[in-house]
Each structure stands twice: as C-alpha cells, then as structure tokens.
C-alpha cells in the first residue's frame, strides 16, 4: 500500500506514453479493419523474402509487403496488400495517358470508363487500333488481362478490358514461378465497408462488457469496489493498445478478441483480491483499512503469481507454435497478462482504499459538523 505512490506514478507514465503513442503513431490496422488482400502461402521449397518479392514485383502492385511466418524455415509467407483495387488512382491516370498517346492526342480518345476496382476498363478510339496495340500497352504496365472484348466497328475501335484481381494475379504468379498449388494458398479479402463496421462493433463490445462487469461487481461487492476494477481494466486496455501502437503490431479482429479476453482475465485477478478484502473486513473488524488491504494483497499474492504463470505458459506456446492466425491474439494476451496481474495488485486494490477513505472522511466531517 505504501508503494502506491510509486506504482501510481509508474502506471500514469505508461498510460500517458500509450496515449501519446496512439495519438502520434496510431494503429497499424490489419486486414480486418483496413481492408485489402492478405495472401498466405506455403512454398514447396525454402526461399527468402527477396525471392518472393522478385516474383511479385513484376505485377506492379505498389504496396505489397512480404512477411515470413512460422519457424524461420523459409516455407511460409504472408503477402499483404492494402490496395483495394487492381489499379490505384495514379495508375488509372497513367494508363489513360498511355491510351491517349496511342490514340494520337488527348481528344482522340472517344470513350474512357474505368471501374472503381480497376478491374474493368472500356476504351474507344476515333480511329482503327488493333488489339495487339492495346495488348502491348497493357503488358507494358504489367497488367494481367483476363479478357479483351473488341467492339464491332473497324473504323472506330472499341475495347472492353477485364483485368485479373490482385488475389488472382498473385496466386497465378506463385503457381507459375514457384510451383505453389491452390491447396497451399489462403486468400483473404476485406472490403472497406466491412472494416468500418467491425471497428465500430469492436468498440461497442468493449464498452458493453465493461458496463456489465461494473454492474456485476457492484452487486456482488459494493459500489466502492466497482470503480477500482474498471480503472484497472481501463489501465490494462490502454497500455496494451499503447504497446500495439508503439511497436506497430497488426491490429486485427483477433486483437479485439484478445482485449476482451484480457478484460475477463484482469478482472478475474482483481476479483480474487477483492474477495479477500471483503472476507478480511468481516473477519478483522476494527483494523485499519490500509492494513486490511495490504494483508489481503499479500495473502493472495502467491495465487495471483501462480495463475499468471500457468496462463502465461499457454499463451507463450500459442504465440510460438500457434501460427499466423493466433499471433495477434496471443501477442495481445502476452502483454495483457503481465499488465493485468500487475494492475490487480497495484491499481485496483489501492483505488478501492482511496475511494473508501475519501468517503469515510466526508462522513466524519459531516458528523462532526
């Protein structure tokens, strides 16, 4: 209890640091929230990141990021593409310019439409242009064409061009150059709308769980316990978010799941300490509150540490062997459990004491007045 000032300052610094990091660096939103493509691939033989990059880079995808997965055997990789369409805005403009040059001037291009995803282009000319010319132009841009449909008129050429999606392109090139069959590829695509929905729902879920938990604590204990538990949870969540922001760890749906699990876990710890405080208040009536809380903390300390340790065993093994899918989740819990264990001892219980003392003082001054 005496060290509360130290703990308090330490936590306050961590929280301020977290908030600053979140404000300045923001989050590195993963696929679930940012949208785009995520292609996970298992190769038949070991390669390094550069080799994969060299296979993909001719595709001309501007923001592909290759990341190795698993136990450094060079077999598994993750390719992240944040770009949501086949063509970006700049590429669309560049392509239009090229077509205009082909047509022989800016006004010579009779028709130009391009789908938002960039997957369908239709172009019309005022003069005959043969398909080979269009094909040549497209291959110059490294565009993978699914189908070109020519218009009927010979004097004024028209073409509708369908391009392969980013996912299709990458799968195909991996298949050709690295012999990867379809069974060894996972492709995820998330559109922009879904990401936003998920983000809002995630915030809602955290808020709702906090509300219910506060209510439960209030009912089972008393109202002086509730704020301490909530402060501890907010403390944990903020710091975990801060860590995610500071190290720019991918923030995904699994991270939200991790945060909700952490809330449950952290509260679990807090509840055990509270339970002991409640018991000691009844048992040792008349003793000073600070003493009661201190001894409650030390009495439950071994249990708190042990449970933290066993849970940690599991989380570490999930982090190391669980593969890509469990990485964000276990990273969240890894940080969370350390912080959660600390906060139930150093934050939740002292908060209760401070609040209770505040109340008692007010009652006393009222009584003496």
């Amino acid at each position, binding site marked *: 209890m005496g060290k509360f000032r130290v703990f308090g300052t330490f936590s306050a610094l961590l929280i301020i640091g977290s908030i600053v990091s979140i404000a300045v660096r923001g989050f590195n939103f993963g696929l679930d929230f940012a949208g785009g493509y995520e292609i996970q691939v298992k190769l038949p033989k070991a390669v390094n990141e550069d080799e994969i990059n060299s296979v993909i880079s001719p595709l001309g995808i501007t923001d592909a990021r290759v990341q190795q997965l698993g136990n450094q055997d060079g077999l598994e990789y993750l390719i992240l593409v944040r770009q949501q369409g086949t063509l970006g805005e700049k590429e669309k403009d560049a392509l239009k310019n090229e077509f205009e040059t082909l047509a022989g001037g800016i006004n010579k291009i009779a028709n130009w439409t391009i789908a938002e995803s960039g997957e369908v282009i239709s172009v019309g000319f005022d003069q005959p242009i043969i398909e080979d010319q269009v094909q040549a132009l497209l291959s110059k841009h490294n565009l993978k064409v699914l189908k070109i449909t*020519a218009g009927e008129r010979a004097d*004024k050429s028209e073409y509708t061009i369908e391009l392969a999606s980013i996912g299709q392109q990458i799968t195909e090139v991996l298949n050709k150059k690295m012999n990867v069959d379809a069974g060894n590829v996972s492709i995820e695509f998330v559109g922009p709308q879904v990401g936003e929905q998920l983000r809002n729902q995630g915030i809602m879920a955290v808020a709702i769980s906090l509300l219910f938990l506060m209510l439960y604590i209030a009912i089972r204990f008393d109202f002086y316990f509730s704020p301490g538990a909530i402060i501890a949870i907010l403390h944990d969540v903020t710091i975990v978010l801060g860590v995610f922001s500071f190290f720019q760890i991918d923030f995904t749906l699994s991270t939200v799941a991790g945060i909700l*699990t952490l809330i449950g876990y952290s509260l679990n710890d807090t509840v055990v300490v509270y339970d002991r405080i409640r018991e000691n208040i009844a048992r040792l009536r008349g003793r000073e509150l600070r003493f009661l809380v201190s001894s409650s903390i030390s009495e439950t300390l071994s249990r708190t540490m042990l449970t933290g340790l066993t849970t940690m065993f599991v989380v570490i093994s999930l982090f190391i062997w669980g593969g890509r899918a469990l990485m964000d989740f276990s990273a969240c819990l890894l940080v969370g459990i350390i912080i959660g264990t600390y906060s139930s001892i150093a934050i939740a219980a002292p908060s209760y004491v401070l609040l209770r003392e505040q109340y008692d003082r007010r009652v006393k001054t009222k009584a003496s007045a």
Partner: protein
Amino acid sequence: MHCKKFNLGLDLYGGVHLVMGVEVEKAVQQRADRLADALRQELKEQKINFSNIIRPRDNSDIIVTLTANDSDESFKKIIRKEFKVLHIVQHEDRTYTLAVTGEYAEHIRESAVEQAIKTIRNRADKLGVTEPTIAKRGTDNILIQLPGVRDPDRAIAVIGRTAQLEFKIVDAEATAVFDEITNEQLPQGVTKEEHTFTGHGGKSTREVYFETPYEQKEALEKLLTAKIPSDREILFGDIDRKGSAAQATQVKTPQRLRTYLVTTRPGITGDYLTDANVEQDPKMPGDYYVSMTFDQKGAQIFAKLTEENEQRMMAIVLDEKVNSAPVIQEKIGGGSARITLGGNYGSTNSRFEEAKDLATVLKAGALPAPVDVREKRQVGKTMGEDTARKGQIALVVGVFAVLIFMVFYYRVSGLIANFGLILNFVLLLAIMVVFEATLTLPGMAGIALTLGMAVDANVLICERIREELRLGKTPRAAIDTGYSKAFSAIFDSNVTTLIAAVVLMQYGTGPVRGFAVTLIIGLLCSLYTSVIVSRLIYDFITSSWRIQRLSI
C-alpha cells in the same frame, strides 16, 4: 472422440468464407415499381386523370402528376385508403411525391435479406457444398461459409448471381413511334434498324430497333424511354449472330447491343420454374441450351400467354438483359421453355460450365436484390491441415507445461488438480461434439486458455488449504475450510470471465465466435470439475486413509 468427428472450421478444413451485402435499396425500388403499377391501374379505374407516374432511377419515390386540379381530394383519399404503405412527402401544384413508409421499407429490406439467405442456401445445396453456413450478419450482410470448396471464384459467381428470369412480350407494333427519331438525335455509334415479319394475327409487322455500343446504352435508353408509353420499357440484348458462320467462329463477341420494346409487366417469371437442365443442341454440337419446366400453374399461365401472343416475339429476360427473343410460333402447352446461350465465344467446356451454372441458379430461384462481395477469405486445403497441426502442437505444449508445473508445485494435490483438468478437457470436447460446435483455430486457443485459467480454481483451493494447514489444522479440516473459503472467489472470478466471453460471442464473427464458445463451455466445465470433482477425490482419500500430512 474418434467415432464422431469434429466439425472443423474453415481455417482448419479449407474452404471459402464470404460476406455478401444485399443491396436492399434495390428491393425497395422494385417494390415501389410494383406499387406504381398498381397505383396506375387504380387511378385508371377510379377515372382520375394523370399525366405521368414515374419512379426515378436513383430512389424509391413515386412521382404522380395529376391532370385536373379538382381530383386532388379523391387522389389523396385513394392513397389513404388503398395504399396505406405509401405516404405523401411532397406536394407541389399538381405533382405529388409519394414514398414508401419507413416501417414498410424496413419490412421490405428485412424480407429481402431473408429471401436472399434462403436462395443462397438453396444454391449452395445445388452446388453440392456439404454443410454450408449461411446466416444474416448485421442489417444487410449475409455470412456464407462453404467448407471444402475447390473453385471459390465459380462458387461466388453462382451464389452471387441475381438470376431474375422474366418472359416479356415484345411490342413490335408500338415501335412505330421511333420513326420520328432522326439519325441526328441518336447518340454516337447508334444505328437505327428495322425488320418486317409476319406478326400477330398474320399481319405483316414492322419492328424498329436500334443497335448501340455498350457505352451508349444509357443515353439511348433515356432517349427512347421518353417516347414510349409508361407501361412499356426498353431492354437490351446481344445482337443475334446465328446463321453468320464467319462471325460465329470469331472468338470475341462484339460488344454491341440491340433494343427491345417490351411490356413492363412480365408475362411470367422464373418463380414458377420447377426444373432447369442443360441440354446439347443436336443440330449444333458444342452449343448448349438450358431447358426449363414450369409447375402446373406456371404451365397454364405460359400456355395462355403464348396462345394470346402467337406470332409475337417473346423476350426471355435474365437479370434485366434480353437473352433471346424468339417469335412464338404457336401455343406452347407442355410447360417448358428454353434459353439458348449466346455461345459464340469461349471454349466448349466453358460454355458447358456456363449453361450448367445458369441451370443451377434458375433451379434455386432468384435473389430478391443484387448482392456484392464485401469480405472473402479462402483457405487452401493443405493450408488448413497445416493450421490444424500447429494449433494442436500449441495446445498440447501449453497444457503439458501447466500439468507439469502443477505436479512440481503441489505434488499429490497437483496430481489431483491435474486429474480435474484432464476431466475438464474431456468434458469440453465431449460437449463440443454433442452440440456439434465448430472447432476453429481460435477455438483451440480457447481450449488451451481455458485450461490455463481452470488451473486458477485449483490454485485458489490449494493455496487456501496450505494457509489453513499453516494455522495448524488437520488435513481434513484444512480441506473443508479451504474449499468453502475459496468458493466465493472461484465463483466470482469465473462469472466475470464468463461475462466478457458472452459479449465476445455476441460481437464475434466466424473464428472469434469459435473462441468465445469454447471459452464459455470451458469455464462452465472448470467450475464443475474444480469445485465438485476434485473435492470428491479429496473426500475419498481422507476418508479411506488416515492422512497425517497432506502433500500440497
């Protein structure tokens, strides 16, 4: 455990996870179209003159312009009495803007999503997908999970197709109004054509139509729509290339379309179909068509429709596009019709696939509104197996570390706790199999984590017993007080985690949900095994032998 298999999630088994958005506003617009038709009919019957009823392209309002001033009151009365789902939102002079009431629009949106779910489930069944998951998510999204699908792109194409089939009579006689359109008025690239054939009642009939490049479609539609009566509409279809051998061998179809002037109201729709099959054209090998069979009522309607419109063209309209428009030679009785594929492109094989997919979607029924893919996750089969293996390793390593630690720290009591843990694990798996819960990788994480946390109850109990022993109590008494004192902490801490898990289950989609489910089941099991089962073991031991020292 091995006789009844686990339902493996997509991440472990491979397959496609899709989230499709239903364009619910389109469904509202379609309903508004139908209401506008009904209103038109009603106003005619009630002899209220109007100059126009339109439903603008981009929203679901209905705009009515009355001819005479004195009919306002009776018009309002009709809306109030007969069209309760509509209300007047704006009134300017003699022009009324009507809108579907919010409540009714909501009803349309909801039923569109429900209808879409039914249709998609039907199609997935027809595709032969085993145990697909199709469920509503949010307000207008549908979650679709197709385990083990090999060709995801094709699956999406089949599932996402609107497939609204309509048969509409071509009103060739009415195309005479297009004579007044001069070539100068036509958008660039559009040409005016005509042809004469022996039409309805043996009269020579002249049809005026237009050929247009794809890009000018909308401009032409706008121009023509202004000329035609409100119960007629302009549709487009590919230009029929049959008979021109030179062009038929051409690999790429020219993207030119021709117009059809048809009745707005379909003569019959795909709703009456009972069957659709792919058949090969005996005269042109490699050409496929889809033969369709109507149900009894459909057959009657179709017979009447073809009888009344002999020698007229009937447009077969698929998703707002005219597939073909053959001339009805005579009444078609048997209740069957066919769709010939535009087939002058692609390989024989791809044409067959296309015909087969079309038959599939026709058989399964139409979607009430178009859908689009908002989220797609596809997992390769080997990839899934790999993930499953990794999950198992993580699970086993984590759990063993916990078990070993418990024995190391609490000796015999640790063994007892471990027995409870293993029982907990078996129970959890058994419950999952019984309730046919799906096992995903996050689910495996949930199991591992539950076991990590289930230890907590045992730790709480053991620590308490140690405390009581330190106070000098006998093992028997220490166990009794230890259990009773630890109970409230165990209970409260489990309930709080449970609350977080339930919220997570509500929020979670797919895999995350799997995690929450295993966490919930695991917590309940752990409450049972640690509080009841391990207690029984202690009781058994202490009553069977006179224990002087407790190994804890």
